[in-house]
């Protein structure tokens, strides 16, 4: 019996040693989550670069989708706000819904829905207030994601941006929330956290989970309704409940409901690109900018539409009469509206490529360059331009791009340590009496039988 036990414990000790040692050796070549990726590795950097440029373009394309889907708001008859804002399509007749003369394609193809839910592991949902144009859009990652952020506006409204920066501890993030309502609208993220808790998603702790919900807002209070109406926790909860993969409404919905961009109605827009190598890149842009999404120096063509993939802006062409509006006046640069208020464009860029935190933050930088391509000027004193990046990590590149396999490595090592401890203790218990007895025999002649 004891011989059998001894054999078992010995085998356990050996197995534990292997489990501890071998993943350790493997992880030496992989990058751990606390190191920046792509150290001295051009192949890895090239992959990040490819995804980054696609994200940059996707964000710029999303700004065009946002502005094209936005609908003219007629006067709503409340006091203290702007009463009517025309959409780009309505302001420039003969531009949208045309049979011929579209923008040229760039090489490349969109994902099936041309929105962020083309990225595996990413769901999205809107909630729009039924009475006042404001709302919330939630991006849900049930399997967790690495998130980065780049804040480049001078009037940002945000929460949980510090924890996703490169130098902080890696946390799996299950949601990113965009909302109207200025700083008040950050309350919507609380509702998303509540929804995540009910679905047991978040950082697992003893007794429950803690969802980490980064969020950024746009300024829309008082624009199309009373100043005091803004998104609440209920908005976030409803948006998370509505989250799904598939086609998603664009324009004056969710966080884009109350948006205004330059002189025209703003909104939320999406775009995605299938890189053809298993990697999907996507963006969402909630366009509520001081600057314009069209080139007032060049016939008011849409900046983002010049990056069209596969005829995605079908029916839209450069304005036939340039910047001349239906009323005969010029579509003005709206840098100084009569009633200057705060603006802000927020959004996400997302990919299924596994990235570590440093590279995720780099991806958010590429997203901000997409904003600069799509909106001119961006990042002004009156904008709080913020872009989150989301890496769901369902596709892995070279080891150095991200902490590939690290969770498994950690688990295996943990199991090895536990096995070593258990079998070691068992071995000691088995052998100790014999050792003590042997010692006692040698040291104490009185106990030796004659």
């Amino acid at each position, binding site marked *: 019996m004891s011989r059998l036990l001894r054999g078992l414990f010995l085998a356990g000790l050996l197995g534990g040693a292997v489990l501890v040692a071998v993943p350790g050796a493997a992880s030496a070549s992989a990058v751990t989550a606390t190191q920046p990726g792509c150290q001295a590795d051009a192949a890895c950097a090239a992959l990040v670069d*490819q995804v980054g*440029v696609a994200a940059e373009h996707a964000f710029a394309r999303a700004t065009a989708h946002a502005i094209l889907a936005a609908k003219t708001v007629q006067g709503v008859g409340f006091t203290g706000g702007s009463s009517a804002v025309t959409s780009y399509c309505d302001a420039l007749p003969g531009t949208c819904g045309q049979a011929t003369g579209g923008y040229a394609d760039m090489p490349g193809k969109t994902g099936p829905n041309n929105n962020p839910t083309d990225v595996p592991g990413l769901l999205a949902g809107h909630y729009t207030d039924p009475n006042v144009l404001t709302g919330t859009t939630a991006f849900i990652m049930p399997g967790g994601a690495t998130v980065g952020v780049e804040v480049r506006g001078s009037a940002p409204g945000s929460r949980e941006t510090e924890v996703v920066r490169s130098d902080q501890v890696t946390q799996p993030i299950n949601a990113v929330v965009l909302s109207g309502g200025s700083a008040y609208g950050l309350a919507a993220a609380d509702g998303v956290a509540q929804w995540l808790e009910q679905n047991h998603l978040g950082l697992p702790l003893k007794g429950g989970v803690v969802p980490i919900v980064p969020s950024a807002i746009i300024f829309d209070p008082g624009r199309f309704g009373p100043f005091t109406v803004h998104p609440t926790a209920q908005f976030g909860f409803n948006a998370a409940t509505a989250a799904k993969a598939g086609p998603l409404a664009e324009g004056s919905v969710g966080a884009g409901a109350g948006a205004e961009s330059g002189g025209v109605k703003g909104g939320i827009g999406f775009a995605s690109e299938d890189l053809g190598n298993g990697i999907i890149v996507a963006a969402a842009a909630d366009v509520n900018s001081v600057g314009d999404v069209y080139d007032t*120096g060049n016939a008011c063509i849409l900046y983002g539409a010049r990056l069209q993939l596969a005829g995605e802006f079908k029916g839209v062409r450069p304005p036939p009469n340039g910047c001349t509006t239906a009323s005969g006046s010029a579509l003005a640069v709206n840098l100084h509206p009569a009633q200057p208020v705060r603006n802000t464009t927020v959004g996400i860029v997302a990919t299924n490529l596994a990235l570590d935190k440093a590279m995720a933050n780099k991806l958010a930088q590429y997203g901000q360059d997409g904003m600069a391509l799509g909106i001119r*000027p961006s990042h*002004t004193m009156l904008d709080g331009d913020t872009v989150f990046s989301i890496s769901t990590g369902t596709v892995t590149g070279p080891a150095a791009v991200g902490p590939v396999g690290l969770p498994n490595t950690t688990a295996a090592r943990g199991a090895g340590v536990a096995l070593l401890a258990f079998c070691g203790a068992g071995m000691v218990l088995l052998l100790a*009496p014999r050792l003590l007895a042997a010692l006692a025999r040698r040291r104490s002649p009185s106990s030796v039988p004659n």
Partner: protein
Amino acid sequence: MTRHRVTRVALSALATPVVRAVLVGALALTLVPAAPASAAQAGTAGSNDDITDVGGITVGNYTNTTAMTGTTVVYATSRATAGVDVRSGTPITRETDLLSPVNEVQHLNAVLLTGGGDYGLAAGPGVMQWLEDQGIGYPVGLPGTPGSPAQVVPIVPGAAINDLGNGGQFGVRPDNSYGYNAINTAAGGPIPQGNVGAGAGAIAGGLKGGLGSASQQVTDSITGQSVGMIGALVIVNSSGTPVDAGGGCRLLGAEFSFSSDLTNYKTPPAGCGSYVPPARPSSGPLVNRGGVIGVVATDINLDKALSQKMAQVAQDGITRAIDPAHTMFDGDVVFGLSTGQVNPTIGGVANVLPDCIHQEQSLSDIGCLLVMNDILAAAHDVMSRAITHAMLNARSAAGFPPSYCAQFQGACPAADSAPPPTTATHAAVPSKPSLPRLPKPPRIDKLKPSGLPQLPGLPRSGPSLASLSLVLLLGLSLAARRGAPRPLRAGARRPA
């Protein structure tokens, strides 16, 4: 079959890069109304249309025309408040940390822009030495006396481009004599542009890059009045391309240019022709392969934070003019400088902009914030224009790809020819210009240790706690066994 489907089929069938570029270019020309060459933004350039139009800014260059590398110094003659924005994967910089708004030093004396990659940062001390000789810098000790300059530390932040080996000579790179000579020649404009200073060895997207500069008035867009001057100086050396390869290879920055920038400039008559943007890097060591480095400067009084903000938005001007910018392979760095000579008149009152903005004004009195926005929009545009100037002034050189004007014949006002064959005969390295005074560093073998104090003796290590406790345990168990022998557990052998 719709037109875009034709495009896609054609693209998949004809996948070679050359055909693709020509095809996309041709389609872009047919489908999008090509921007007429006269399309330009409204605005007023300064008299030199370069950064020296900003009061308190001069520029000096030192160029090694044989090895094609060099150094450029933007000199703030009465110092400047400054910030920096670094937005790229492989930046090469010095003294950027002190520019953070949370750090103490408020002003810089000069900005170093240089070739030579990381080696090229060696030009910085030469700039410092020249400034020290004049007694210019951050005061840290005694004031100057005749024959003995003030005890100062010149503040010279800088950035470098990696032009090592561009033109064929990897081993020749700027040292401190380049920095000294560059600032020693600093003067007002008009300044030379193209293959000069740090722009000598620059390559941008498979074309000869170079130094470019531009200036323009900052216009209060409410009153239409000029509130100050802004200028940019940039070294265009990028992994991305400065041309619209999908739109007839027009310069991307031309979109934000004034008609004065584009006098006699035309969209390339033959489209992109044989030009294909270089493939993105995909192997080899991860080093800086491009980097647009530059300065945006204004005479409007800003603090460090607002100067940094101006640099940040000027980076957007690079985003617009280079496709793509700020990549893993670029070292894009922009310094923002304020010489502080002008407090803009807003609502009839001269305003110190930072104070005015930081007062968190009410909605009806937001003028300062809006003027700051005008500065930012101008910073964006002036940077794009400076990049356009760099590309139009760059000239083909042995061992380099052709210049924009040589590659796209008929586009430029001043024609350029294709570069000579790339089998450049590497001329002997020219003798370096001598410095007037370089203090000799003390010889290392003469440096004696200044008598290190003897370390106190460590206590002799005794038996460890673990071994003590083990002995104790064993002793206890033996004592227990001797005192009262207890029956052993079943399965153990009982002493006979």
